Every structure is written in C-alpha cells, then in structure tokens.
C-alpha cells in the first residue's frame, strides 16, 4: 500500500491549513468512500487529515420563527440526521433519501459533508487501470462506448458521463439547501445548486470547493406548513444499492393547483439534477396525468442516452409520476 501521512485535529482552522498545505491532502470523516478509493488506487493522497474531532456534529434549528432553518453539522452522521424529530416530521424527503442510502452500518459512519463529496461509482473511474478523464485528465472516457447502463443521460459531456451517486444531495437540491464552508480564504456559503459542477471539459473539477476548503454545515430552510415532500429511489435490488433513478419532490398545493414545486433527480445526471423546466410545467397547474407527462417530457428534453442507458429516459419520467402520485393523492 502507498504510504501517506495522517493527522488528526480538533480545530477546523488547523485542518484547513493542513490540507491546503499539501497538494494531494484530503479530509477524512466517516471514511466510507475515501478509504475504498485509496484501496482501489483511484485516490492517492499524501496526507489524510482526520476531522472526526471537530465540533461539527450538531443538528439544530436556527433563525427566527417564520424563517427557521435546519442547520446540519458537516460531521452529523446520516443515521442521526434521519432520526432527528424535526427532520422526520417536517422534511420527509430528507429522511427518506437518507434511509434509502447504503446500509445501516454505513449510515452510522457516513457524514453529511462526506456524502456531498463522495465520488462517482463509475467503474472506469474506480479502476485505475482504465482511462478516465476525471481521474487522469485527458486520458479518455471508456464509458462513452462501454458499459454505461448506470451512466448519465443528462449533464454529461464527451469527456465524462459519470453519475453523481448521492441520494442526500438530490433531496438537498430539492430543498434549496446552502452549504457552509471554511477555507484558506475564510468562510462562505454556497447554494447547493452551485455546489456540484457538470463535467464539461474538466470532469476532474467536481464541486465549487477550493483545495483545502472544508464543509462545516448544511442549512435547509424548514418548509412552510402544508408542504409535502418525498423521495423515490429505484434500484436493481431491494436495498444497499445506488439509485438507477431517483426523484425528490417538494410540493405546496393551493387547493388543487400546484402553488410551488421543486423537483430533483438522481441516477440520471452528472450532478444532482434540478429541472426548472419540469417545475414550470406544473407550477400553477393541476396535477393530472397530462400535466405530469408534460413535466416529464420537459425533464428529459435534453437527454442524451448512450448504448445501454436509454431506458432511463423512460424510467425517470415514470419515477416522476410515481413520486407525485404519492404526494398529490387528491388529483
């Protein structure tokens, strides 16, 4: 195994300085992804900074009464967030996405910050003997013509069609979350929609984070009374598996009319995918088979399927029907 240095600190500033000072430095929290990547040789940091001692595990409600926000520490474990009473009561989409993630053992270790930073499951990325533009820029993308049943139909490029694997990030995208960070240049807040990047010509750049920048918390506005939400995950076995397709919906009705709606999707795109076009097709309208079908068509209008993943174009539209059917049951 490759040698690497290990450091552990209880001060966020020191953790940032350590990683920022080492070009291949990496933070480790739950270790549920990084350690596998290191064993497989897909990542090879010279320095691993253990941040488990940082005081970033709290889940709390902040802000004044009308604009309450849930502030989730970056080191909060997925299992703890899912079980938080305000989350399970007011944010079903978040709880459902978390409980659909991995296995109970993984959820007990994996953290919210780490989950947003996890790398794609693309097997060409994870096996260093294959070319991969994400891992080795300029080397090529065998997925374009290869085994691409699990790859993206949206947000891809000729350089990369790897899917972002997170369930949590899809739910956060539908909830308009904000990612709070501490970097060498200080603190900043990044809208979740700006956090993950499409690959374009630089698939090695996956997020808005600069090297050494650390996620400290994720904030989610608590929804207004009457908001419904849900998460649907479609996969090849019953559990402990990444999404083939997933759909998150947050919905507020005005009588039988959609007052506001947020729709985000996983499994189909290179980043957690929000579809304004699909939302526009439903906002101010009733939820009928026809309007939902129109939203589905809008969602996949720009889809570019490859050899083995064309079924996702159909499947994601059906997932949209299904998740809205479960929420808008008065149509």
């Amino acid at each position, binding site marked *: *195994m*490759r040698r690497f240095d290990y450091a552990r600190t209880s001060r966020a500033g020191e953790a940032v300085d350590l990683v920022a000072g080492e070009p291949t430095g990496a933070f480790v929290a739950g270790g549920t992804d990084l350690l596998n990547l290191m064993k497989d*040789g897909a990542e090879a940091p010279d320095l691993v900074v253990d941040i488990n001692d940082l005081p970033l595990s709290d889940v709390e409600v902040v802000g004044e009464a009308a604009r309450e926000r849930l502030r989730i520490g970056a080191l909060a474990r997925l299992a703890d967030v899912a079980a938080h009473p305000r989350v399970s009561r007011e944010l079903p989409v978040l709880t459902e996405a978390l409980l659909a993630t991995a296995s109970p053992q993984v959820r007990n270790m994996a953290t919210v910050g780490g989950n947003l930073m996890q790398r794609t*499951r693309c*097997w*060409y990325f994870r*096996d260093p*003997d*294959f070319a991969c533009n994400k891992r080795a820029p300029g080397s090529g993308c*065998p997925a374009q*013509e*290869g*085994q691409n*049943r699990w790859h993206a139909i949206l947000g891809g490029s000729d350089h990369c069609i790897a899917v972002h694997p997170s369930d949590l990030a899809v739910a956060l995208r539908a909830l308009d979350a904000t990612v709070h960070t501490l970097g060498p240049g200080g603190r900043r807040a990044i809208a979740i929609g700006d956090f993950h990047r499409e690959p374009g010509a630089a698939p090695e750049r996956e997020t808005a984070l600069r090297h050494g920048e650390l996620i400290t918390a994720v904030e989610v506005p608590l929804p207004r009374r009457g908001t419904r939400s849900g998460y649907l995950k*479609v*996969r*090849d*076995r*019953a*559990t*402990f*598996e990444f999404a*083939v397709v997933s759909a998150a919906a947050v919905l507020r009705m005005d009588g039988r009319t959609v007052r506001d709606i947020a729709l985000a999707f996983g499994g189909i795109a290179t980043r957690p995918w929000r579809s304004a076009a699909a939302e526009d097709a439903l906002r101010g309208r009733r939820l009928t088979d026809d309007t939902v079908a129109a939203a589905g068509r809008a969602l996949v209008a720009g889809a570019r399927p490859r050899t083995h993943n064309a*079924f996702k174009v*159909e*499947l994601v539209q*059906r*997932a949209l*029907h*299904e998740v809205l059917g479960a929420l808008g049951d008065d149509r």
Partner: protein
Amino acid sequence: MSQLIGRPVARVEARAKVTGAARYAADAQVAGAAHGFLALSTVARGVITGIDVRAARAVPGVLAVLTHETMPRLRAPDASTGYFKGFVPLQDDVIHHAGQPVALVVAETLEQAKEAAGLVRATYDAEPPRVVMADAMDEAYVPPPGFDGPNDLTRGDVDEGWAEAEASVDVTCTTVMQHHNAMEPSVTLAAWDGDRLTVHESTQGVTGTQQSLAHAFDVPTADVRVISPYVGGAFGAKTTWPHALLTAAAARHVGRPVKLVLSRAQSYTSHGHRPETHQRVRLGARRDGRLTVAEHVTTEQMSRTEEAVYSPNAGTRVHYAIPHLRSVQRLVRLDLPTGIFARSPETTTLHALECALDELSLAVGMDPVELRLRNAATEHPETGEPVNWHQARCLNRGAELFGWADRDPTPRSMRDGGLLVGWGVASASHVAGGIPGGGGARATLSADGTALVQCGTQDIGTGTYTALSQVSADRLGMPLTSIRFELGDSDLPSAPVSAGSATLQATVPSVAAACGAARDTVVRLAVDDPESPLHGRDPERIATAEGHLFVRDDPERRDSYAAVVGRHGSPVVVHGQPGNTTALRSTGAVFVEVTVHPRLGTVRVRRVVGVFDAGRILNHRTTRSQAIGGIIWSIGIALTEHTLVDAASGRVVTPNLSGYLVPVNADVPDMVVEFVDEPDPASPALGARGFGETPSTGASAAIANAVHHATGRRVRDLPLGLDRLL
C-alpha cells in the same frame, strides 16, 4: 437406525466458527511465512513485450518478483486432478485473457507485496479482444465427446417426435457471466521441506489439489500434503487454480513459506466463472400435454485455452419422460477466463427448459403443474431403470403448501394494492453423486470412550462435518459429543472432490462401514474378555447406545466403549473401504410469488415454497440451510447477478460486491422448505442422496414464470432487471 439420523442438530463446528477458533487456510500460522501478491494483465489478448520490475524490486521488504522470465518452469496439471486451466501462467509471454497473472511478488509483509505488485510495469503487443458472445455465435462448434459422452446426441427419432406433436414452442434465451463470490477468497499457504511440500489451501478437493501440485512439480503425490479443515464457500471456484501452483513455486524459489490470498477483484479472473449461455429450446407435445420431442441447443462461452463441457443439458436429457430428444452442447471461444463450474452447469440450462415448459403450458392450455405431472419420468430415460425421485410428490405437496389452486391463470389478473402479483412454478433437478474415487474412512476408538473418525473429504460449508458425525455416532452407538470428526487433509484416507453434489454418496458408505466395523470389533473384544459383564455373550445380541454396550434383552448387563478399549490396552483402529458411487438425481418443485411494480418494473420475490426429494435427509437443519442458500443463489441468477465485461478491453468492470449485485436480506423472503425424506434404495449413503446443487436450480425459472404471470411479459434474457419490464 437411531434417532440421530435426520435430527436437525446444530453444526458440530458452529462454536469454532462463530468464536473465530476455526482456523481457515489464511489463519494457519507457519513460522517465517512471507506474503505473495499477484500482478495481473490489463490486456486480454497479445504478448508481453517487456516487463519492468525494477521499481517493484526496490520496495523495502521485497524478496522476489517472479515473471514469465524468472518463474521456474511448471507442468500444467491434468484436468483429471481438478486443474481446469489449459495452461500455467508465468511460463511464456502469451496473454490469453485480462487478469492473467504477469508477476508474483513475494515480500515480508502483505502491504509491501501489494505495493510492489502495483509497480510492476508490463508492456504488451496487444490485439483487440473478442469478448462479446453475440458477435461470435457463427463460430460456435460442437466439441468432441468429453466428460459425459457426445455433445451432440439424439435419442429416439426427432422427426417422429415432431410428427406426433400437436403443439410446440421455440424459445431462445440467454444467461450472463456470473461469479461465485465465496465469502472466503481463495488462499494458498505453501511451505517446502526439502522436496516435500505442505500447502494450506482453501480447496473443495484436498486430494485433487495434492495431485495437481504433484503433477506441476513432478514430485511423488505422497510428498505433497494439502490441508483444508474449513472452507468459507467454494461453489465450484475452489479446485486447483494457477495461484496455488505459482505460490508453491515462489515458496520454493525464495526458500520460505509463502501465503497468497486472492483479492476480491482478482477472484473474478483467477478461477472459473459461470459462462454466458445462449440456448434454444424447442418442445413438442400432444394436446394432452405429454411431450413428444425436445431439442435443446446450449451454446456456452469458453476461453481460448480449454475445452470443458460438463453436461449442462443433463436435466433436459433425463428429468422428464421425453421419447424423442436431441441435445447439443456447443462452445464459443472468446478472450475470457475459463468458463466452468459456478455452483453447477445445469443451473442455466434447467432455467431455459423450465421457462420453455411454462410457455408450452400456455400453448396447450394446461396448468403448468399439471403439465409437469403429466411428463414426470417413471423410468430413467437413458437407462430404463425405475426412477427413485418423487417428482409428482414434490409438485403436489408444493402446490398444496403454496395454495396453487387459487391461482387465476390469466396473466395480469392478480394484484395487491398497486402491485402486480404473479405465481410461478418450476421443477428443480440436479445430478447427485457419481464422481469416481469414493472416500475411504478410518475410525479410532480410544480408552476415554471417544471416537476419532477421519476421512479426506471437505466441508465446504454444507454441513459435512455434522452429517458424518451423526452417521458415526449412529453406527457406533455413541453420543454425538463423543465423536471427533477430521477431514480436509490429504494425509487422511482419500475422498473425491466435494462437487457435483457427490460428497454424501462418496463418504457416508465408508464412514458407516468403518464405524460399524469398529463397533463390531469392540463388541467382540467385550464378549471375549473375562472381565467384561458381557463375557461369553452372543455378539449378535449385543446392542450399543450412548457409549455403552449391553445385552439387547437384558440392558442392565452392560459395559462401555471406554472400559472395553481401556482393558484392551490400545486404541481400536478400523478402516472403511471406499464404496462405489453411482450418479443419482435429486429433484424438487419450487413455487414463487413475485410482485412487479406496474410503472417502475421492479421485481421482488415475496414468497417461496420448495419441496425437495434428496432421499433420506441426514440432518434437516443443514439440508434446509442448503435449500435456502440454493434458492437465494437462484434469486440472484434471475434478478441481479451479472459480471459485466468491457468490450474494448476485455476486462471485468464489476469485480467487487458493490458492482456485482448478490441478493441482500431484503431481497430474500421467508421460505417454506419441505423434504420428501424417504431413503433411496439405490443410494449407498443410508438412502441419502447428494443435494447441494439441486436447490439452486428451479427457482430462477419459477421467478421468470411468475413475472410472466404478473405482467404478461415473457423475458427470456437474464438477469430480469427492471429495464426489461418498462
């Protein structure tokens, strides 16, 4: 026979396994052992033009980096020893498949060996590989007669069969490459003492591995000892494979014991796999459902270097009464590793047959259970002997337990809430036994009243230790706790490979014989011993139970094994001779309920009933466990398992349990399992037949048939994922 036979006693080694006391091959402690790690080819076809090992050699702790240029020359062992690879790697520069070893690194620690293996740089003159079977179907050929006779055979007159047929189906189906994924990966720990070799190996055949190694190194078989007391699953992957030979050669080269454990990823190319198949099944029947003809053409993927066909069509040939039959077994050569045993070659072929029968039941308008009952064989289609399996009883009892009578035969007719519900049935059927070289056994009775019973077989997780301990205790008349059973060592009386559901039939006769003869010997010692309360009694009227010997109609007049052997002054040692083992067949019927999400296509198995006939059941707990395990494999075959190969490189892209989906607990419903449990008079194993592979047949077809019933969609290609049902 005492009440011990059949009793659902817990595994005798259970405590050792759950406490970690059981020493698997990689747990063996051998002083001075170094660690080996393989570097594998990244190309699938070509030659090695150069191999740079300087960086690997420079890693601290590295003792040797052996390549095709430096590895000592080895003979390729014969396939009869269980070495199914047509060549030994690291002997020349030719690459036959991706993942073929190109170097073996030996170092002081595993971490050093692994790091150095990653630094070996091979360059290749590579050609584009051919790994897609559909692109090479016109190259399919019928190999010459092999293991089980001709690969193209006709019984009766096929034309006549078609002339008699009033209904027919013509079904083409495909199955994919799949892997074993035993929990314990393959392990070799090899140590030389002069020209004598001792190997701790995770193997399903200590005798075969011993012979393979003796062949490879050209040493007498007696100079090789293979030890394998515990095996964490084998499933056809643990006969002898190249890593064992290479590790032993490396140990000799560095003059130290060497331990090598295949990584999970390496296990996808370092032993065999279940090959991809393309099958065409044509069935003809009269209107009353009776089959008149079957033609089954099976085409399997094969490597460039072997020619291995192990009777995949056996189920079609013998399970049903089919008067006119043609069976063809073909191969297509591709630049892939050896396609061979993974659980069983009969699994995918019985799947095709049982799905075709479901289609036939619709073609003749008959319930699929009734169709199978009408075609149940009463005499063996190839030998004419009466069959000893009770297929009709399995079908009828299964239908009763499942509630089959309530099934509406119309597809898409059954629902539960928003879900489509489907019920499907299939027969299970698999060869049991018939591997030559039946096991010998030895019983040693000591003055402490215990028996050491030994047989060079293996327990690959099926419960062999327990079943043979029960047989020993039963034959001796001792409590189970007085039996110590040893197996998994080539120094013990030899037994055949644990494969083909052959273990019981190969070992029970000699174990029973050794223990029966040991009992008789002690009885004679007692009646001849003036100090024994049994002195002078008729040995025929002496019974044994719970470690005691007593006069059958005067049980107070008794002696004990401990006392008799103690007075005798030395242990009583008796050998049991290997018996003949014939190929029998274990069968069953599997009923499955699935749900299918009408919009998303997700298939879930919700209920399974399996009724099996494996002759007498020696232990209801371990046999039920095998049934459940086999059905779970079958769920994987039907729904999730798929080794994906990248066509451009010829490399497996799913070499881990994240990419290769085995069913998880949530995919597996509670199951009802029952056995006919009647002794088979043809079995030499107290009426018990081998069973291991039977339950991995049947359920996959029952699932596919249930999906058709639920949806009206006939999916003939596996795995039956949601994308096939949109």
